[in-house]
């Protein structure tokens, strides 16, 4: 067992890394909203699910790929991937914003405490998941493979697959963009201000609703990108993937300290690797149980996460 593990260590690690980056992007959706509103945006998992479907729509229906068609190459491949990524991000981002307006805004104005938005969020996730379930007849949907998954090179014994590389590089890029957005732009400054003290921010003339909408938009964009990467890696989706991935990403956000953007980064990586190693030893069917046990252990021992809720400038 251990020998096997060492043989496969690097290929597991690469798989875990790319999974980790998917988690990071979803976790950003949770952590951004939590940072600003101190509220768990439950519907984020379903926004991710919608992102995966948006990707498949582009690849399958707009570019007419089927399971048997030839792989795209060169410029056309990048065009397809780029369009799918942008479309998934935009759809998820806008949906996330709409969810906030429909499900949370009124409750927030009414100052209804933490449980009512949570219940409302569950209602929204249910509506989204069930609508997609009805549209897809409860069947998993496979994505046609537009890109040949060739190996770029070898690292020890493990091949570096192109999709994992794309995921890691583009996720790092998106993460960098997000950090820059939060730290350097005017809107990012407003987001940080609201996250530190909503009342003071309002007194300073910041439009809270606008900031909240922007936060949901940005969180949704990141989550949508995660949906694209998920389809790129696993090539299928279904209406119920949101839940499991959502819990895992939420665990990642907690692991790094929810509300803390950098925490989401480390938490996502740690969880992606941990989950991949654990499913090697225990079998993939216990993956969700591992994640849950990690979640309970963290909440029980270090509820603020490994890096803590950063109450300083870095928080968003």
């Amino acid at each position, binding site marked *: 067992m251990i020998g096997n593990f060492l043989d496969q260590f690097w290929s597991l690690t690469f798989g875990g890394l790319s999974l980790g980056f998917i988690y990071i992007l979803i976790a950003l959706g949770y952590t951004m909203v939590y940072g600003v509103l101190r509220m*768990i945006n439950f519907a984020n998992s379903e926004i991710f699910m919608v992102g995966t479907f948006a990707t498949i729509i582009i690849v399958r229906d707009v570019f007419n790929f089927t399971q048997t068609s030839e792989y795209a190459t060169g410029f056309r491949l990048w065009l397809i991937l780029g369009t799918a990524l942008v479309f998934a991000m935009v759809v998820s981002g806008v949906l996330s914003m709409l969810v906030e307006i429909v499900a949370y805004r009124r409750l927030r104005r009414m100052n209804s405490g933490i449980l009512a938005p*949570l*219940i409302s969020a*569950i209602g929204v996730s249910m509506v989204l998941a069930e609508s997609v379930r009805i549209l897809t007849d409860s069947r998993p949907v496979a994505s046609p493979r537009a890109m040949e998954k060739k190996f770029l090179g070898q690292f020890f014994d493990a091949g570096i697959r192109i999709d994992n590389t794309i995921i890691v590089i583009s996720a790092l890029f998106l993460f960098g963009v997000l950090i820059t957005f939060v730290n350097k732009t005017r809107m990012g400054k407003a987001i940080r201000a609201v996250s530190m003290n909503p009342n003071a921010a309002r007194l300073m003339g910041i439009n809270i609703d606008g900031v909240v909408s922007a936060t949901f938009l940005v969180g949704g964009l990141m989550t949508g990108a995660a949906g694209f990467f998920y389809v790129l890696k696993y090539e299928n989706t279904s209406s119920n993937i949101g*839940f499991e991935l959502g819990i895992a990403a939420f665990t990642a956000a907690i692991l790094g300290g929810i509300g803390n953007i950098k925490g989401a980064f480390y938490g996502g990586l740690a969880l992606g690797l941990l989950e991949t190693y654990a499913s090697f030893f225990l079998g993939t069917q216990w993956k969700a149980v591992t994640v849950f046990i990690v979640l*309970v252990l963290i909440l*029980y021992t270090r*509820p603020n996460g490994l890096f803590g809720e950063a109450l300083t400038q870095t928080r968003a």
Partner: protein
Amino acid sequence: MINLRDKGAEIWERQGRLGRIGIAVGGVAMAAALPFMGGTILNTPIADYESVLVYPIAMYVLMAIGLNIVIGKSGLLDLGYVAFFAIGAYTMGLLGTKTSLNTWEILPIGIAMAMFSGIILGVPALKLRGDYLAIITLGFGEIVRIVALNLGALGRSEGIQGIPTPPGIFGIEYAFDSHRIYFWTLLILILLAIWMVRRLSVRRAGRAWESIRQDEDAAELLGVPTFKYKVWAFVLGASVGGAAGVFYASKTLFIAPDNFTLQISILILACVVFWRYGKYLGCNSRSGNSWLPTGSNSFLIRRPSARVRLGVGNHDESSS
């Protein structure tokens, strides 16, 4: 629209002791007569009316009363209530097929198992803040299902088959298709649960829960052992869920992990929320009305027959 609940509470308020007993008896009698009302406006075109009355309606009512102790009374958001239902059902399934115990002997064991798992989950989880508790319980509900799905001893996705029906008691036979008998038994369980909740609510525990729901920190400062009462609320809620589970397994004769999805937790939660928090009688009136998104006969469930008013109004306005 007239607010029936407030109207009912008002009438209840004005009655003397005799009048209240009369209303309660009338309400129970009406609920008990429900199986005879099939074929009228309460009909269900596809599914068998009486079996719908047992599951989901009466079963959901029972579970909603249990969940209401946790959510409505003490304000703890439990999103994994189906776990206790599943634990009760699997206890019945395992013991009923592997041993010679019958349903009535397994019922306390199932309740005890559910309560025990309530402690296991509650003790770590209840130390956490409200929204974290929700996530933990949500995960727990799903974990129980995944464990049932992957553990050979629990039959994996095939579940457990051939679970015995309850043996006759007091000369009443429980044939598997005599839905009325099950409905009436459930009605008794529901009344017992209501009685338990009512008695507890007016005593120390009820006051402690109320204070926890309103402001946990203040309650703690005033000397309410909040953690203890939170665990108690959790465990009592679990016990009702476990009882429902045992009875469910014994009624359907066959259980599989697919019967215990997250949707059930959410639906029971919807039952509780629909009639405002804290009104456990509201659970009766609304549970059948919730839109059941899963399952084949989904919108059949949306039916007025579920408006079972037992006539016992809880008019404690401060708890809404």
